[in-house]
């Protein structure tokens, strides 16, 4: 009725033999496996052999018990990972041979990982890299940076102060500048007006000179105008020269007057020349002072 599914003899022998041997059920042995004849050993060797075999047997037994208990159907590596054991007994990828992975393994499992903790410390190249990074990223010390920030603050403050001072100074001159601008404008307008009037007068003169109505743009008119302009310029130059001369004369007169004043007291004094008598310096000094006043 039911098809008996018998397991392979090899699997049976690996999984169940020990159990039935220790439980002592000799009967079942006959069912599942051959009765193994135990060889006749020497006495001492037998004891040791037995002890080792017992150990091995107990270990194997434990393993097999654990194997039976493991009903998780997980990948062995995943199961070990979950239980906090070294997941990969052998490197199954190049990643497992990297220093980073080994450090992580040590970090998570500690001594259980079986790794030397010395791998956790930085290698020479890593230290050099880190030092170089620090030197480039943070070239200045804290004190230097504090000094720089203080200097910057000071500079900005000074700049602001200076600007404020400049503005204050300029504000004082503001009214003066305003009047200057107005004056300059007036002067410009004045000059233009004066020049225009002069020109108009000239044109009138020339017109009068010709007598009849002549176009301003006519050549004869223009020539006449040029001549008159030249004459005018000469007259102006002469007047300017005369002004200068008169000014110079005034200056000379004033200088002469000063000289005269300076020379007068020395002639009027009762005493002899100052060069001859040096003992009466005091009196002379007082007179010079009077002159200066």
């Amino acid at each position: 009725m039911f098809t008996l599914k018998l397991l392979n003899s090899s699997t049976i022998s690996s999984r169940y033999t020990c159990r039935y041997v220790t439980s002592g059920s000799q009967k079942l042995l006959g069912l599942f496996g051959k009765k193994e004849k135990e060889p006749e050993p020497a006495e001492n060797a037998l004891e040791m052999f037995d002890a080792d075999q017992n150990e091995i047997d107990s270990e194997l037994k434990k393993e097999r018990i654990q194997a039976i208990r493991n009903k998780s159907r997980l990948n062995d590596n995943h199961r070990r990972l979950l239980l906090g054991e070294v997941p990969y007994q052998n490197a199954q990828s190049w990643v497992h041979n990297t220093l980073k992975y080994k450090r992580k393994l040590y970090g998570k499992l500690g001594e259980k990982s079986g790794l030397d903790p010395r791998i956790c410390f930085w290698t020479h190249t890593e230290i050099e890299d880190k030092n170089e990074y620090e030197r480039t990223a943070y070239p200045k010390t804290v004190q230097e940076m504090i000094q720089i920030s203080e200097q910057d603050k000071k500079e900005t403050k000074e700049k602001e102060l200076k600007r404020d001072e400049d503005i204050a100074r300029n504000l004082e001159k503001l009214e003066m500048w305003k009047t200057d601008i107005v004056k300059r404008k007036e002067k410009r307008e004045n000059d233009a007006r004066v020049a225009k009037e002069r020109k108009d007068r000239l044109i009138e003169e020339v017109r009068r000179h010709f007598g009849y109505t002549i176009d301003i743009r006519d050549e004869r008119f223009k020539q006449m105008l040029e001549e008159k302009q030249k004459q005018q310029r000469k007259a102006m130059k002469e007047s300017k020269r005369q002004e200068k001369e008169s000014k110079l004369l005034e200056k000379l007169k004033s200088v002469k007057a000063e000289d005269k004043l300076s020379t007068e007291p020395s002639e009027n004094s009762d005493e002899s020349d100052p060069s001859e008598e040096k003992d009466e310096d005091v009196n002379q000094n007082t007179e010079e002072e009077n002159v200066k006043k």
Partner: protein
Amino acid sequence: MSTVKHTTERALQLMRQLPRVKLNNIRNNPGAYKTQKRGRAQHGGDKHGDGMKSHCNYMRLGYETGNTPFYLRFTYESYYKDHHLRREYPPISLNQLQTMIDTDRIDTTKPIDLATICLTGLYDFFPDQRQYGYQLTDEGANIFKTKVNIEVQHANELVIATIEKNGGVIRTAYFDPYSLQALRNPKKFFERGVPIPRRMIPPQDAIEYYSNPKNRGYLADPEAISHERLVLAQKYGYELPKIEDDVDYEMLSETKDPRQIFYGLEPGIVVNLEDKSIIRKREN
């Protein structure tokens, strides 16, 4: 014969020196292809490829029927300029801190750190988003009543005054992004199996803040800090408690070296949490 070079020889010589022919150093013959330009004005525009009789088609996105569209009006908008360089400090209020202390999430018998706050499980920050730690805000300054030794990355005057009034100690410290990753999840960091790194110094624009005793910066002179404590007490009108006479003086005076990341652990050591061991390099 060797001196006279015919054109072919010259060409071949040139060819030997030129780089390999690739797509980026060749081009089409002139007139081989025309660049497709969007139709405009009389020839090409008008009905924009939709024919005479059908109703109008959809215009391209952003088109505003002729006037300069909004997306083309401005050639430059600097709202987010340098945003990737600005440091952020996500806030934690004194209210939140007090709540955590009251609900036993934080142990006040030990110094409070960035790691402590992260390990409460309530708060997390993201160093890769330019977040450089926490700032303590003054919301809840009126109800804060605990003596703590706390280290944050930014705090304002009122917060400092509140903590010092309650007999505590506050410091502002800078941590570079690598150290922040270590502090944010110390367990994960130690599982990496690498030695503890050195904390880096702050950048130039942060050095002023962290060297100022008013902010209780970790780079400031301790004497200046104690002077500022007095100044602040006078400003806010409370009596400055004497920390030296305090029972928890040792705990309150515990600080980190500017190059230290974790309390009690110096850089260069390997910590293993599984074995609960510390491995140090030998001096020689």
